[in-house]
């Protein structure tokens, strides 16, 4: 079973993600320089993060703490770990090796549950240092055609965790869901600010395709994915490129590819002819990390409730599935406590989640008073306010913080009584005889379209005070449609 919808019938794609996240520490991984984005180039540097001769690393304990916290949130096992050196020459890397965890990472194994219910395996989540940043100047501004390059070492030595997933995703949608859920966990745990646009969360995607029922194909790694949209587009583009190659009798080369957002294409960055030989060996300037059972217990005790559990609680309270849009949105926007309070206060769960899904994607929603929100839903349920009026009142509750009754009164809102509503509906029908005839005689599709037309007129005539549900029911009754 697959939902790789962009691929031709019979093809499937396999995706694994490697996500690099900057840890939300005040200072870098191995020195006391500030871990700050956006400062003047090379303002936050010292002998250690510049890799000067004679400098030595001293491990930032907070970084380790945050990495372990993430590990526990991803259900990983925390292990004795050893930092290694990954040796390769590159101008953004001042020591020409990167200090990273290799065969003994802090976090091993684990899983992450997507809102859809799909469980994605976690291979590992290890700690490493970031590199500096190259700015290519002149020419085309790319590494291959620039006149010269400047290096900013502010990012050099910034602590990262690299979270490696199993190849458990089968569509770009699933990959986006995974990245989005991981981001929610990073934010909930305070491990990272996870800003994709600032590079504090960077996603690389490993993509391969295969004919369903056949073994997986050769994978390519796509780098430089700095938004969920890019991630989705790049995966779909790359999978299609591979299918085209195979359809034409060609083969897919294992390579690293670069995503170009502007052209919407991936291009070869470097070909992996042989496995890279990074000559890893244990970093002799650091000692092994040996977390105790007490350390792990302390981290577990301090873990906040994670998004999946929060979705579960809300779904239970609302009596619906955790995969419902309103539940997912409520947790994503941090409004699940509000929803739980309102439902607990007797508000209708369906209306609560409808408001959260459709009417509360606004700034300030998180500071909405649960008491007021509960009162609003109650007014709506009792018919004191129409759905449209409730929406208007809710918007004002967010900006003004006033109680819904006061806002409704100020607007002069009161639901039209049935007699007044019927008068308005009759007037609208009389004014549009042709449309009314089509409504009466038409099929479901035509009627659906015209319902919208008539409702617009009714709302206009009632200045938005008509209850849409009641008005629709009246229209159908008058047309002789029942059920």
């Amino acid at each position, binding site marked *: 079973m697959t939902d790789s919808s962009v691929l031709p019938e019979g093809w499937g794609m396999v995706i694994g993600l490697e996500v690099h996240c900057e840890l939300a520490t005040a200072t870098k991984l191995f020195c006391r320089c500030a871990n700050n984005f956006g400062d003047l180039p090379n303002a936050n540097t010292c002998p250690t993060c510049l890799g000067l*001769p*004679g400098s030595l690393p001293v491990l930032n304990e907070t970084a380790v703490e945050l990495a372990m916290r993430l590990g526990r949130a991803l259900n990983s096992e925390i292990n004795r770990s050893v930092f290694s050196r990954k040796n390769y020459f590159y101008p953004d890397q001042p020591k020409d090796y990167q200090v990273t965890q290799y065969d003994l990472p802090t976090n091993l194994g684990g899983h992450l549950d997507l809102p859809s219910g799909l469980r994605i395996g976690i291979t590992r989540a290890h700690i490493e240092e970031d590199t500096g940043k190259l700015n290519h100047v002149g020419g085309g501004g790319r590494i291959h055609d620039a006149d010269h390059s400047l290096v900013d070492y502010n990012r050099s030595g910034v602590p990262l965790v690299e979270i490696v997933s199993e190849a458990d995703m089968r569509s770009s949608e699933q990959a986006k869901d995974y990245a989005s859920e991981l981001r929610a966990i990073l934010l909930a745990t305070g491990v990272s600010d996870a800003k994709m646009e600032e590079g504090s969360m960077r996603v690389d995607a490993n993509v391969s395709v295969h004919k369903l029922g056949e073994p997986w194909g050769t994978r390519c790694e796509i780098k430089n994915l700095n938004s969920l949209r890019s991630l989705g587009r790049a995966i779909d583009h790359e999978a299609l490129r591979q299918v085209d190659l195979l359809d034409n009798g060609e083969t897919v080369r294992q390579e690293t590819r670069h995503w170009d957002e502007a052209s919407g294409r991936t291009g070869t960055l470097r070909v992996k002819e042989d*496995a890279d030989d990074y*000559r890893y060996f244990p970093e*002799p*300037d650091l000692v092994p990390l040996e977390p105790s059972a007490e350390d792990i217990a302390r981290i577990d005790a301090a873990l906040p409730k994670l998004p999946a559990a929060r979705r579960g609680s809300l779904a239970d309270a609302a009596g619906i599935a955790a995969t419902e849009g309103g539940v997912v949105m409520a947790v994503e926007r941090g409004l699940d406590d509000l929803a739980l309070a309102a439902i607990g206060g007797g508000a209708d769960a369906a209306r609560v989640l409808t408001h959260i899904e459709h009417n509360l994607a606004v700034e300030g929603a998180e500071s909405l008073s649960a008491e007021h929100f509960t009162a609003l839903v109650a007014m709506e349920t009792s018919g004191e306010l129409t759905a449209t009026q409730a929406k208007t009142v809710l918007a004002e509750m967010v900006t003004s913080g006033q109680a819904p009754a006061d806002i409704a009164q100020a607007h002069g809102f009161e639901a039209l009584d049935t007699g007044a509503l019927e008068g308005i509906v009759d007037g609208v029908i009389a004014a549009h005889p042709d449309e009314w005839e089509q409504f009466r005689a038409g099929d479901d599709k035509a009627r659906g379209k015209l319902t919208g037309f008539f409702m617009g007129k009714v709302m206009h005539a009632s200045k938005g005070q008509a209850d849409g549900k009641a008005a629709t029911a009246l229209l159908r009754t008058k047309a002789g449609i029942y059920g």
Partner: protein
Amino acid sequence: MTARAIAAAVRSGERSARSVVEEHLAAIDRREAELHAFNLVTGDEALTAADAIDAQVAAGEDPGPLAGVPIALKDNLCTTGIPTTCSSKILEGWRPPYDATVVERLSAAGAISVGKTNLDEFAMGSSTENSAFGPSKNPHDITKVPGGSSGGSAVAVAAGFAPLALGSDTGGSIRQPAALCGVVGVKPTYGRVSRYGLVAFASSLDQIGPFATTVADAAALYEVIAGYDERDSTSIPEALPTVLDRLDEGVSGLRVGLVTELCQAEGIAPDVATRVVAAAEALSAAGAKVEEVSVPAVIYGLSAYYLIAPAEASSNLARYDGVRYGLRVDAPTTGEMYDRTRTAGFGAEVERRIMLGTYALSAGYYDAYYGKAQKVRTLIIRDFEAAYERFDVLLSPTSPTTAFTLGAKADPLAMYLNDVCTIPSNLAGHPAMSVPFGVGADGLPVGIQVMANALDEVTMFRVAAALEGALA
């Protein structure tokens, strides 16, 4: 005058630090041209520092335990604003923006640096012949090498240019030149002295240590530079026991083991072996119980060392790439710039070790070379532990021979064999020192190596002091 006598005189106001420094600068003037101990003599800075010490004394302040004592620093120790070359062309023009921890501690103790001493490039060698700036000469016979890699520091102390010097010891680079120049040289326990600011050769083996003309001076310098430093993650947090006040305790009742494998190693010259026997007899006469002991795994030390040290070096020396500091040979692409810069900047021995180390770490070879070498290291530690259950200290020659003639060991393997007795202590991380004990058949100095268990510098110094006393 010993360092301790100088410090006492300066602290009491009996002598000015300026006069001390002037006297040593004059000594440097007389013989430096023929000996080449220094890459750089910092006379002006030394005189300025001396005046500051004198002002402190005049103001009634104590400048510290090494007040006014001139010291020579191996040129792989970072010194703010003063070129630090590692005797390599690749660091051309580089001035560190910071002081090594040991340099800071020396300043705080009142010591005065008189210059940066010559070494085998990046401390890779046993004769200083691998220096990009030419070899240093042995003050006892200028046709002979002073040993290495800290040859310049050994020469500086032996020639009276400074009563104290610092070196670094990765496989014997303090002890071997100390032996060949007839001075005291100490490699403390790995982690006793902070490596912060020591330009790395092989990080898991490197250790900074003192040179001096007497065991007490070496102990005084050791007490100043040793102790925990939060800037070095491998620094030992345990409190540092004092040494100076224990030197006179003697060796009565101590158990001394003569390491069979090192005393009978290939290439140990008979006149050197004779001096080791004499040292054992001297300790025995002073009340120690001396016996032979086998430490079987040490015979593999040299092989393990020449995989581990180059492996770490290949990574440590990657940063000299022309991008940020030191030498850069321009080229059309970054890759070619790396190639040309490193080819022009590194000497043959450094290139050889980078290639050896790169090979030892390569995929498919790691287990057979680096992995196996680390297992040998574990075996050596285990065998030493067994020996230290029965003995307080172990004894061996420091160097298989007395100082050899410049240019005599052009074959790298012949040169590597110089380190056969010193390497095991580096692999184990244990303290070891060389103390002069007479001369060989050629009249050149012989050094005896005293090895001790991890953290037991006190016993090691006591034994060295007893040997020194036996000669007096």
